């Protein structure tokens, strides 16, 4: 009988980006267990409005109207299996600034990832965050230029533009790799999950909206876990 370790990431993510407390627990597991996959959909039925600028009566004209940006959900395991924290050193991701919108609106990364913030608008942008997980201010820079930030702590980082108050995005920094961002159909898939019982959480627009207990059997089955967010 082999022995495996499971790490519990307590309160791995909260809406306010709480820090992670990691406790290592020992347990027994069968030697021939196969990894499973958790798939499903997240059906967002909440009414979403355009992220608006503050209404200002001081303008000499109307601000251009914008469509609602795609706002995916993030599904992740609150309890990360053993080995989850042996992450490769530093990846790279990008959050674009285009038509006064951050693209993507939600970025999910692992600890140690460096995120580039290229400006592809004709106007200046000033990316900043005051989140406890990562506080930064990139200053003003113009089209064609990019600045980057490395995220070294897990949690939620809210990103804003100091010039355009309606620009808002989220970066979810995980201490493990068991997470997925939903696609436009709301579908997600988390693969390579070792057998075990986990708490699956779905996050959307700043808050954990739902959690569910799922069990991946030793046979490495595909588990379906779908959510409806109202």
């Amino acid at each position, binding site marked *: 009988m082999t022995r495996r370790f499971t790490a519990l990431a307590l309160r791995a993510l909260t809406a306010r980006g709480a820090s992670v407390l990691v406790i290592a627990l020992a347990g027994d597991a069968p030697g021939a267990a196969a990894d499973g996959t958790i798939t499903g959909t997240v059906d967002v039925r909440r009414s979403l409005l355009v992220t*608006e600028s*503050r209404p200002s009566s001081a303008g000499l004209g109307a601000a251009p109207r914008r469509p609602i940006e795609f706002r995916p959900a993030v599904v992740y395991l609150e309890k990360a299996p053993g080995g989850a924290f042996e992450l490769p050193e530093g990846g790279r991701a990008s959050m674009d600034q285009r038509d006064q919108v951050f693209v993507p609106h939600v970025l999910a990364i692992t600890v140690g990832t460096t995120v580039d913030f290229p400006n592809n608008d004709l106007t200046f942008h000033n990316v*900043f965050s005051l989140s406890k997980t990562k506080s930064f201010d990139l200053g003003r820079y113009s*089209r064609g230029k990019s600045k980057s930030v490395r995220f070294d702590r897990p949690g939620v980082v809210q990103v804003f533009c100091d010039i355009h108050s309606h620009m*808002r995005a989220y970066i979810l920094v995980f201490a493990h790799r068991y997470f997925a961002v939903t696609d436009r159909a709301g579908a997600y898939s988390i693969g390579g999950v070792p057998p075990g019982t986990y708490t699956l959480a779905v996050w959307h627009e700043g808050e954990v909206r739902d959690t569910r207990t799922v069990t991946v059997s030793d046979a490495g089955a595909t588990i379906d876990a779908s959510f409806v967010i109202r």
Partner: protein
Amino acid sequence: MRPRPRPIAVAILTTVLWAASPRLVRAQHWPTEPVALAGGRLLVGGDVSATFGSEDPGWFTYTDYETSAIRRLRAGVTFEARATDRVAFLAEIRAETGVGVTPYAWYVRIGPLASGLVDIQAGRIPPVFGAFTRRAYPQDNPLIGSPQTYQYLTSVRADAVPATADDLLSMRGRGWLVQYPVGDAVPHNGVATVAAEQWDTGVQVRVGSQVLSGALAYTAGSLSQPRVGNDNGGGQIAGRVAWHPVPALVVGVSAARGVFVADNVREARPDAPAGHDDQRALGIDAEASWGRWIVRGEYVANAWRLPPLDTPRIVDPLTSQAGYLEAKVRLLPRLYAAVRGDTMRFTSLQGSAGDDTWEANVSRLEYGIGFTIRRGLLFKTSVLSNWRDGGRVRESHLGAVQLLCWF
């Protein structure tokens, strides 16, 4: 001359706060985003600021006889109701110590073209002249005080004028409480060169793109005396052209000309020569930004023409030149520092006892810091050093702190 609280304004403010309150209660904290109601058709934003500063015996920071810009509580609610994609109604209701509740702005905005290149606004509209009036909100002003062009009370009034040059010279450096023999005899504060505390009523058209735009407005009042109703049978035409050649720079040129002197002055002195009753101004403004720096500057040349009545007469226009340079640098994500140098200079006037500037020249240096406690909650503190070459108090160093939150 400040508008009195109106029951309708109180009713609207109460209604809007009531409508927004469930959202606030649910969120259990002050929201950081505007409140969207009716499926996004109605947007509500708000701001509250509390400013506490030193006593100002020289009246350098007063915006009227009773209110100092560094000693006041202010709350405002702005809402935008979108009837269609091209028609919206905007209003801002403000409650302020010493003033009460006033409808600061209310106007309809029409976008006749789908391209958004043209906007028409009618009602109590934002001023097109200069740059500061449209960013005079506490959250847009890196310091606590305002540039003197937009706040400092001169010895000129619209509803009362000096009969002689000596009358005017006797009021040098005391714009906070001015009394003249012609017109309204009750002492009252003079006007700022360009009013930032009150908006004018009329129609404004803006045409342009991101690179080049122009705005033209016809309103009932004048730069220094915005009005809802007309008190002199005239109006003002004002315009501004803004050029944005690169993202880092915007340059604006403004001009305005309007009838300033009120009818009660003409009624008091029917013998006053016609045509000496207007205000004219020319302004240049610029803003440059790069990295963590923003630098702004503005220059305003202004002239009031008052009727030449008795000897020694006020023959020439009462002109002034004012300018300020402001810089802000972000030191940390939550912390910035800012400084503004500011001066107003007035032309000479011949009186019985010799010539002197018709109003006392005045300068100000303000510097301070701002600390963001959280998004939408800002603490500011600044020092305002004022100098004036006339009046009872000629030098004053003031300190102020301000806490403001907005959504």
